[in-house]
């Protein structure tokens, strides 16, 4: 059996043939306690994709385990808005061509090398390949000249924080999300869930709109994780009359109605 598995692995192309990861930092010197951004960029072959924090009905998100100098800390990853990919009624959230995720590192006085142990999955319509590499970055020593641009571009691609009011509650088989958008003429269209097991990824979403308020009725995930205490995700909307699309990031408590099991 193991021999068979080895044969399969040997015959399989590698994830790095289709998705090349690079680590960027623009800082030339670091000060203890002063956070800075690092960017993890994937360059992806056409027809292939990597996955968002919530990969959707299948797939696997980009995972980073940091190995940092003593006393350093890393924030959770920051993700740009994903593309919505459909196959046979099922959904995936991910990225094609190129994506940069960011993390904020807070250094201590300790010098050293930042290492990112990466696990990810790259797929096309048929095949999936798991990737596993470690990237290293020595902070301060001659920063990559492209790094400033890469990180600034990644930062501007992040969904904007939601400026209106929002609340979410569990209601039987649904999650109800009520939002009021900050400006007239802004119309909410859909919600992309950041966590994979809160709302049903591929179910029809119903949105009732009244002026710039919207009430989303979202089917609860059939794999609902009872430990979830927040609803996080991206509201996708349209601005009238220009019809331009906007993305706002929401992170609100997921309230239980009385009698609802936690």
């Amino acid at each position, binding site marked *: 059996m193991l021999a*068979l598995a080895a044969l399969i692995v040997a015959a399989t192309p590698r994830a790095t043939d289709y998705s090349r990861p690079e680590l960027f930092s623009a800082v030339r010197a670091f000060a203890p306690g002063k956070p800075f951004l690092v960017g993890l960029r994937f360059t992806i072959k056409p027809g292939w994709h990597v996955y968002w924090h919530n990969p959707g009905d*299948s797939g696997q998100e980009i995972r980073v385990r940091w190995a940092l100098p003593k006393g350093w800390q890393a924030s959770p990853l920051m993700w740009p808005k994903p593309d919505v990919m*459909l*196959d*046979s009624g099922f959904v995936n959230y991910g990225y094609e061509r190129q994506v940069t995720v960011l993390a904020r590192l807070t250094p201590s006085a300790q010098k050293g090398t930042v290492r990112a142990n990466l696990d990810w999955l790259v797929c096309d319509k*048929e095949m999936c390949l798991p990737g596993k590499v470690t990237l290293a970055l020595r902070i301060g020593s001659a920063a990559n000249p492209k790094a400033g641009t890469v990180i600034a571009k990644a930062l501007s691609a992040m969904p904007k924080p939601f400026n209106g009011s929002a609340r979410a509650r569990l209601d039987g088989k649904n999650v109800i999300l009520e939002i009021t958008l900050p400006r007239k003429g802004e119309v909410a269209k*859909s919600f992309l869930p950041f966590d994979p097991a809160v709302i049903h990824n591929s*179910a029809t*979403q119903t949105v009732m709109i*009244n002026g710039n308020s919207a009430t989303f009725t979202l089917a609860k995930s059939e794999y609902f994780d009872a430990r979830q205490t927040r609803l996080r995700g991206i509201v996708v909307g349209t601005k009238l009359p220009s019809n331009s699309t906007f993305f706002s990031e929401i992170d609100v408590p997921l309230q239980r109605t009385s009698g609802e099991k936690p």
Partner: protein
Amino acid sequence: MKLRSLVLVSFAVAAVIVGSGFRALGGAEVGSAAPAFSLPSNTGATVSLDQFKGKYIVLEWTNQGCPYVHKQYGTGNMQATQKWVRDHGGVWLTMDSSAEGRQGYMTAEKATELMKTAQMSSNAILLDPDGTVGHLYGAKCTPHMFIIDLKGTVIYNGAIDDKPTTDFDDVKTAKNYVKAALEEAMAGKPVTTPTSRPYGCAMKYKN
């Protein structure tokens, strides 16, 4: 493919209802009767779910080209779980819903060969190239597991285990949800984890 979007304007309440999404809810829900089906097997026989009534039945959606399936078969974990279920009087049906021309599609001959080379203990591999039964159950990825109890009720829908990775090493420390659910059900206890998020490769359904 475009996102299906529905806009209804009701002037009476000055509200707009927008439905945006992809598919209706459905699938095999825990606590409900397992949807009936019959499919051709690798031996050419037609296999119906109802012929196993009164036994525990495990359904395993598979795609031999998927690295998450490799992890389970390369470590021998899936075969060991199959054997355990069979040894405990249960039935194991391995389901192939890959469409012809897509990854994981198997002819009856190829499925029989796989049963032998991978040393599987499944009762049969069922061939569902139209994806009818896959959609009926709401199979989302490979592997995706379902358990049906003695009365024909779905008692588990989810992942094979709690380690959503392709690392072979993770199998050693993973909690096997299928075995755990069956151990509890066979002991007359409620299933502690009746659902878990399945992880794996996207289904290769007929488009």
